[in-house]
């Protein structure tokens, strides 16, 4: 998400503005929420804040779900970014995994499945809105191969796996799936979620609206992708 703020100066002028006056909210919680909001705004405006923010990465066991039903809990873009990484990761450990015939077969199946998923993504990325039939067929082939290999490796299939076939099917009349059907303001959910985390439960709804209105009043605009 790319944000811009026009003619806005941060610092004391912002801190003493009407929204943050002592009559509105008092006590230390004000300072906390003020800092929190400032951080949100700064991270939207200054590139160095964004890069700092992104350098505090984490990947923990709790993000991987249960061992019996693994599922990565991350944002969609983060999950997408990790696809290439896990294929490289399988390559890194392939020598060690190949010592045991069982793990070697599973690792090979998973690696091939990952390559098919990457090929699926590249078909979507390389094609324009109107996709030729041959490319639609490629989408179908790559996805089917991904699914079959993943299942043979022991992966769990979910109803969404079936739903993906309908998505591929609709490419014929709706166009490349990369261009449609994800809500234009989907990324706004993340902004509101971050605001919501900084609000106390006592006046939660009121504070979420208040802080969001402050962002709008300050002229923060969101370029939706």
């Amino acid at each position, binding site marked *: 998400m790319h944000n811009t703020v026009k003619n806005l100066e941060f610092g004391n002028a912002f801190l003493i503005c009407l929204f943050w006056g002592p009559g509105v909210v008092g006590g230390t919680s004000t300072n906390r929420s003020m800092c929190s909001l400032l951080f949100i705004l700064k991270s939207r405006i200054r590139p160095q804040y964004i890069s700092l923010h992104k350098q505090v*990465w984490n990947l923990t066991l709790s993000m991987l779900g249960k061992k019996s039903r693994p599922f990565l809990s991350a944002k969609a873009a983060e999950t997408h970014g990790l696809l290439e990484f896990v294929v490289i990761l399988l390559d890194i450990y392939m020598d060690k995994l190949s010592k045991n015939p069982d793990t070697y077969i599973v690792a090979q199946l998973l690696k091939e499945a990952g390559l098919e998923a990457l090929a699926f993504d590249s078909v979507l990325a390389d094609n324009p809105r109107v996709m030729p039939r041959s490319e639609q067929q490629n989408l179908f082939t790559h996805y089917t191969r991904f699914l079959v290999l993943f299942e043979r490796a022991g992966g769990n299939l979910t109803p*969404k796996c079936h739903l993906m076939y309908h998505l591929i099917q609709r490419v014929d009349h709706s166009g490349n799936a990369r261009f449609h059907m994800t809500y234009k303001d989907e990324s706004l959910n993340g902004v509101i979620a*971050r605001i919501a985390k900084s609000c106390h439960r006592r006046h939660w709804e009121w504070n979420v609206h208040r802080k969001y209105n402050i962002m709008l009043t300050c002229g923060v605009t969101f370029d939706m992708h």
Partner: protein
Amino acid sequence: MTEDFSEGAIQLIRGDRLEPSIEIPDVADFDHKDPPFKATFWNTSDPQSLRLLHESPLMWINGVTFMMWCIDLLHTWHLGPLGAYIGFVIWFILSSKVCAGCAFVDTEDGYKIGMVEIRSHLWRYYKEKRKGSKDFKKRGSAVQTCITP
């Protein structure tokens, strides 16, 4: 169903669930309703491993069909099979005990040690990505933790 039930053509097994229908909108009315009436039960082929889903009442509305379902790439692909695949691969590597030092500790500690090693690979991968692409940071493709001041 808490136990199997078999009578005539009706064959119900443990785990089947009575679903609300037009004749019985409230499933609690099942015990008091005068027969005969039609009841809808949902079941699954494997109650132990598969999750039993609910029927969507949206489909009962006239004119609402599956073609009105907005299937989007983000929720269906990235937050669906892709998330399951990545989670599965990392768990597979962790449980294979191929990470350094995992062979000599108990399972839980082995997972933690393995996770540290995988994380170090991830940081290295991101570092190389950032070197190769200046706008990698802007894409939000890196796993990140939201920090609050």
